[in-house]
């Protein structure tokens, strides 16, 4: 590599990492508890536990489930009804002051068999909420998400330039060498290189899928206006139906299941909310395999009549978003995968920290070795 090219890559690596490192450290630290948010919820007693019932216990009528939730929060519209991917014994019914609310939600947890309200947990306060907001949007809504997405792009640049710079450093070293006999700084440089290069694929996947996840709100808005609106061009019904005008959700879901046999109900977005249209229940169906259970397929039912209007497969950008979620969260391979995610996250913290250390502890000009080694030394100095 020419000295000039090398210097350009060093410049990219130095500045892309310097700008994003503080935020990446924050994301790695807040991401750690989020890997185990269910387990932490169990420990804190905030996780809902349902009674054991035979698997064949009939499921409660969804309209009764909704009525139970509405009784907890009289006068508030329902926005979403959803369930955990691995536990269908209860429903989360999300309500708010208005269907356009984006921050303060009320949630009623309703037993899916008995339609009894099991609890009204607050998901907008407490430790996990603090970690989530710091991780997702820095308490700044969509602009905060997009800002973190941009920081993620810088991380991707830092990783790619780091991979390019790996070669000039390793010309005379075997893979995995850590020169113990050398100064503390050289040892940290070697560790930065080996930890960085060994975890590069994981870091890139988690980084890129994280960036994609920050685009969720714009992607869903785009889907509403460019994908859904044309399909529903003839369905302008003037206004979002009031709660008393809504058709039976139970009937709408039965109709949706008949439209997409082989798929099961995952969640419902109510008329007017993000992820639906102003006039329809968006009934999100999912497949049964590990992969297809992550791919949601919305069936639209008229909010006032309950009739199925359209079945709209997700476009490529939403499929990408749906697949980016598990790949970022590490929640698709059980506890061992959560532990691996934790270790790889901790290793990434060491890579970030050592990078910062290498930048802060540049050797002084006087110690710089012979001119011949200049390019390589320069690279080491700037490896932060």
């Amino acid at each position, binding site marked *: 590599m020419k000295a000039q090219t090398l210097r350009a890559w060093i410049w990219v690596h130095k500045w892309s990492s310097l700008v994003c490192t503080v935020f990446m450290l924050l994301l790695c630290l807040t991401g750690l508890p989020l890997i185990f948010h269910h387990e932490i919820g169990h420990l804190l007693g905030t996780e809902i536990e349902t009674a054991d019932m035979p698997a064949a216990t009939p499921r409660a009528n969804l309209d009764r489930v909704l009525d139970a939730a509405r009784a907890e929060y009289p006068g508030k519209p329902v926005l979403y009804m959803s369930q955990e991917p691995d536990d269908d014994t209860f429903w989360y019914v999300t309500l708010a002051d208005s269907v356009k609310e984006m921050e303060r939600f009320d949630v009623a947890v309703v037993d899916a068999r008995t339609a009894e309200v099991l609890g009204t947990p607050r998901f907008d306060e407490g430790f996990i909420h603090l970690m989530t907001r710091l991780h997702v949007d820095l308490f700044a809504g969509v602009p905060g998400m997009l800002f973190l997405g941009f920081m993620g792009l810088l991380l991707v640049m830092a990783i790619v330039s780091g991979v390019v710079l790996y070669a000039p450093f390793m010309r*005379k070293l075997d893979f995995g060498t850590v020169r113990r006999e050398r100064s503390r700084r050289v040892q940290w440089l070697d*560790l930065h290189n080996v930890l960085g290069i*060994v975890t590069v694929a*994981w870091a890139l996947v988690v980084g890129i899928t994280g960036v994609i996840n920050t685009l969720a709100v714009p992607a869903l808005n785009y889907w509403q206006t460019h994908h859904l609106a044309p399909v529903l061009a003839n369905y302008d019904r003037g206004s979002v139906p009031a709660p008393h005008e809504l058709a039976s959700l139970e009937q709408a879901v039965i109709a949706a299941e008949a439209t997409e046999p082989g798929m099961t109900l995952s969640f419902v977005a109510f008329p007017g909310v993000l992820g639906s249209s102003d006039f329809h229940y968006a009934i999100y169906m999912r497949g049964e395999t590990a992969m297809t259970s*992550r791919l949601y397929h919305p069936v639209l039912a008229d909010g006032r009549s309950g009739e199925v209007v359209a079945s709209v497969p997700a476009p490529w950008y939403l499929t990408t978003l749906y697949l980016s979620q598990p790949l970022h969260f590490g929640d698709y391979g059980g506890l*061992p995968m959560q532990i*691996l995610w934790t270790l790889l996250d901790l*290793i990434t913290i060491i890579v970030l920290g050592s990078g910062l250390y290498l930048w802060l502890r540049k050797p002084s000009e006087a110690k710089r070795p012979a001119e011949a080694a200049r390019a390589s030394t320069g690279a080491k100095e700037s490896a932060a």
Partner: protein
Amino acid sequence: MKDGNRTLWQIYRLPLALAALSLFGLLSALFGDAWYDRVSWLALAVPTWLCLRALAVKGPGSTRR
């Protein structure tokens, strides 16, 4: 450690193999459960274990300036 410059292939072949293994592990659990999950754990455990070994055996804790 030997003298002499290594070729790009010599430098990148092991990182490439580890990256391929990691991607295989990341995707495996996405395509199925049970055995797919177990394959995924094994594949992701290799780079993780290499890092922990580099930190434990050769970490700057045992520095000698």
